[in-house]
C-alpha cells in the first residue's frame, strides 16, 4: 500500500509492504509499531531506534508529538492523491478566506473597514481571551469583504469574524 505523507512542504513516499517492511522514499526500513494505550500513545522502532510519540487525528490530519515537537502530517493514499491533484486545478488562486475565532472570547477592536486593502501580517481583529488581548492577523494579502463582528461582541469558537477576498 502506498501513501504520501506531507509535513509543511516536504513529502515522504511511504510504501507499506505485505511483510510489514517499509519503503520510505524507496529506501527499505524495518519498522515495528505498537499502540501502547489504545488511544494516542505509540512506540515505534525504526531500524531498532526507539521512538515514542503521541498521534491524534484531527480533521483528516495527524498531529504527531515527538520529543516535544509537534508535527502536523497529512497522509494520503494514491487514490486521494490523484483526487487532490485533479481538484487543485479548479481552485482559484486567491479565493475567499474566512478569519475565524480560534477560541471563544470578547471582540476588543476591529481595526479595519470593509473594502480596505490589507497586507499579510496585518491585524484584523483583537480578541480577548484568557486575560490576554490577542491580535488575529491575515496570512496573505487581500481585501476586507465583510466584517461580521463589532467591538464588545462575545464570540464562540470558530465563528467567522471577517471574510477576505
Amino acid at each position: 500500500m502506498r501513501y504520501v505523507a506531507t509535513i509543511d512542504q516536504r513529502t515522504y513516499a511511504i510504501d507499506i509492504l505485505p511483510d510489514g517492511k517499509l519503503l520510505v522514499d524507496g529506501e527499505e526500513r524495518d519498522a515495528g509499531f505498537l499502540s501502547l494505550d489504545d488511544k494516542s500513545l505509540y512506540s515505534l522502532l525504526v531500524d531498532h531506534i526507539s521512538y515514542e510519540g503521541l498521534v491524534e487525528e484531527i480533521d483528516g490530519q495527524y498531529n504527531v508529538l515527538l520529543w516535544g515537537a509537534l508535527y502536523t502530517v497529512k497522509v494520503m493514499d494514491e487514490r486521494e492523491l490523484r483526487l487532490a491533484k485533479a481538484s487543485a486545478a479548479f481552485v482559484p488562486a486567491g479565493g475567499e478566506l474566512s478569519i475565524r475565532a480560534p477560541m471563544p472570547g470578547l471582540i476588543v477592536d476591529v481595526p479595519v473597514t470593509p473594502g480596505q486593502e490589507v497586507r499579510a501580517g496585518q491585524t484584523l481583529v483583537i480578541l480577548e481571551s484568557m486575560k490576554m488581548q490577542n491580535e488575529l492577523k491575515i496570512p496573505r494579502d487581500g481585501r476586507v469583504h465583510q466584517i461580521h463582528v463589532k467591538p464588545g461582541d462575545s464570540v464562540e469558537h470558530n465563528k467567522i469574524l471577517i471574510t477576505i477576498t
Partner: protein
Amino acid sequence: MVETTLIKRILIANRGEIAIRVIQACRELGIHSVALYSDVDRASLHVRQADEAYLIGGARPLESYLVIDRVLEIAKKAGVDAVHPGYGFLAERADFAQACLDEGLIFIGPRPHSIGLMGDKLAARELMRKAGVPVIPGTPPGLTNDEMIAAAVTEVGFPLMVKAAAGGGGKGIRIVASPEDLPAALASARREAEAAFGDGTVYLEKLIENARHIEFQILADAYGTTIHLGERECSIQRRHQKLLEESPSVAVDDELRERMGAIAVRAAQAADYLNAGTIEFLVDRDKNFYFLEMNTRIQVEHPVTEAVTGLDLVKEQIRIARGRRMGPTQESINMKGWALECRINAEDPYNNFLPSVGKVTALIMPTGPGVRVDSGVYDGYEVTPYYDSLLAKLICWGETRGEAILRMRRALSEYRIMGVHTNIPFHQRLLNSHRFMAGSINTSFVEERFEIEKEDDDEQAEIAAILATLVAHRDRQQAAQIVQRNARDVSNWTWVGRWERMQR
C-alpha cells in the same frame, strides 16, 4: 505577646495549580482543605483533590473567584479558620484581607495595610525612598502634562516610561524615546489606565535599559523576624509576563546578594510586612539595583526558591499565620545548587503565543531525579478561555546551572501533552540558545533577541511522517474491516494486529 492559634480548616480562594499546591501543604499538615469552584471548574483538579468543595458562581472571575461576599459566605458555611488567597484573584486586595479579619478569619498573608501600601505603586515608591531603598528616578503622580514634560527633560531623562499609578499586568505602560513623543504617550497611557483600572493617573519613570529582573523572597513572622531567602532571576519575559525563572541568578554574587538581601529586608520592614512576600528589583549592567515593586503574596515562581533552600514556603506561610515563629533563620538559609522553572502555558509559540483552549487528550508528565511538576490539569481536562493560560510549572534542580539546564531539556522532551498547544517548543529553543546558556539575558531578551521558528530536524520529521502513516494505515484498514463484514479470516485489520504483535 503574639497569640498562637490552631488552624484546622483552610479555605483556598483560588483555582488551578496554586490551589493544588496549597492543598498539598494542608494535607501534609493534617489540615482540612476547602476548595471553591466556578460553573466551569466542577471537573477541575483542585476540586478533585480538596477535602471539600463549594460552588461559588459563574465562569467569569467577576461572578465567582473575585466576589468577596461569596467567598466569605462559603468560609462561614464551611466553618474554616483561615483563608489562603494563592496568587492573582483576591490575593492582593487589602479590602479582602480586612474583610477576612473582620469575620474572625485568619488571612494567610500580610496585614491589610501592607497590601494597601504596596498596591499603590506610588505610595510604595515614596515609602521605599524614605526607607533608604534605591528607587528608579521619576516624577510624582498627578502632575499636569506641562509639568511632566518639563520634569522629563530635566530630571528623568530619556528613554523613559509612562506608567499608570494603579498599574499591573503591563497595562498603561508606554516607552518614550524622545521628548516629541511624550504628549501622545501620556494621553494614550491615561486612556488605557482609565479603562483598565478606573484611574487615569500616570507618572514618569526612567527606563533602565538592558535591565535584569531580579527579586528577593522575603519571610516575616509576627515576632519581628524578617529574613530573605535569596534571589530569583525572572528576566525571561514576554509582554511583561514571566516565562522562565531561576534561582540563584548568574548576575548576583555573594557580596551583591548580601547587599540586596539586606535592602529587601529593610523594604519589607518599612511596609510592616508579615508572611511571605517578594521585593522586585531592576538591576542594570553596572549592578546598580532599583526597587520595582513588592508582591504581597506567594509567587508563581516560589518553587525555585524551595528547590535551592529546601524550605516549603506554603507551610511556612501557614505556620506564620498561626502566630508561630518561622522555621528558618537568616543564618540557616543555605542556597544549594541551581533551579529553573518553565511555565507551561496553553499558547501557540508559532502563532504569536495565541492562547489555546480545548480538551487535553493525552498527558504524560516528566519524572526522575531533580524534576518537579506543579500541574493543574489532567488527561481529559477541558482548558477554558476564562482563566489564565498557565497549565503547569516544570521545575528542575541541579548541582550547577548547567546540570539544571540539561535536566530541564530532558524533562521538556518527556513532557507530552496533546489537545492544546503549549509553549514547550519555546522553552526548548530558549534552553538551546547560546545567550541563555551563557546567562546573558535581560528583560528584553525574548522580544528583541529571540526568534521562534520551526526547526528543520529532517530526521525527526521523517519519523513523524512514518508514525502518522502507520496510524493512518491502521485506521483505514480498521474502517475497511467494518464495511466488509464478510471478509473473514485474514482481514486487513487482523493483519495489522498480527503485524503489530510480530514486530514486538
